[in-house]
């Protein structure tokens, strides 16, 4: 069964820590995305990548960076975690050529910054 795997389901970090969220997909998808999900706000796009070493800012990139050194792996980095980054983080992937295709999501990482 094809899937997107996020390395942690739950994380608790301290303010100011550098945080890495890892995402791996086994579907050979070109596109990968990081969203954060907050009640009443839906999913908001942080960063996305359509190829190795390529990245583009989404709607809320401030305070985040990403890395895509291999096609199957897309990492989200919080350079200095703050309490307002407490949220559910969702990784997704999709095929480039299927413009009407859907995203495949991971199960999410619930991050709490204290």
């Amino acid at each position, binding site marked *: 069964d094809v899937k997107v795997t996020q390395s942690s389901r739950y994380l608790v970090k301290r303010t100011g820590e550098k945080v890495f969220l890892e995402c791996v997909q086994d579907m050979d998808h070109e596109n990968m995305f990081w969203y954060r999900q907050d009640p*009443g706000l*839906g999913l908001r*796009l942080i960063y996305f990548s359509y190829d190795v070493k390529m990245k583009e800012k989404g*709607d809320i990139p401030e305070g985040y960076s990403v890395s895509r050194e291999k096609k199957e792996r897309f990492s989200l980095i919080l350079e200095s975690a703050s309490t307002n980054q407490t949220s559910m983080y*969702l990784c997704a992937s999709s095929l480039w050529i299927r*413009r*009407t295709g859907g995203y495949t999501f991971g199960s*999410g990482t619930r991050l709490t910054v204290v």
Partner: protein
Amino acid sequence: TQLLEQSPQFLSIQEGENLTVYCNSSSVFSSLQWYRQEPGEGPVLLVTVVTGGEVKKLKRLTFQFGDARKDSSLHITAAQPGDTGLYLCAGREGGGNKLTFGTGTQLKVEL
């Protein structure tokens, strides 16, 4: 960036009732998708609509794309507890691969 507003935000109904969820924007979409998310999991794609006025059915779920491709609706007939979850619409800009998600509708169906 497109803004997608969903209504209602919350819906609690009894098993067997019908319901409709709306997704609205002032922008035109090239395609629109509906996802369902269950607790502790990521969203799962239900359907994609691409043509203005298009209607798609998935068992008891009926999806409609507005004629002007600015809005969509999801209608559930005879809701069941298994329909409980967060329903998200998502619109695609032009020919790109980026989706913008709606604000979500949390549905609870009780026995």
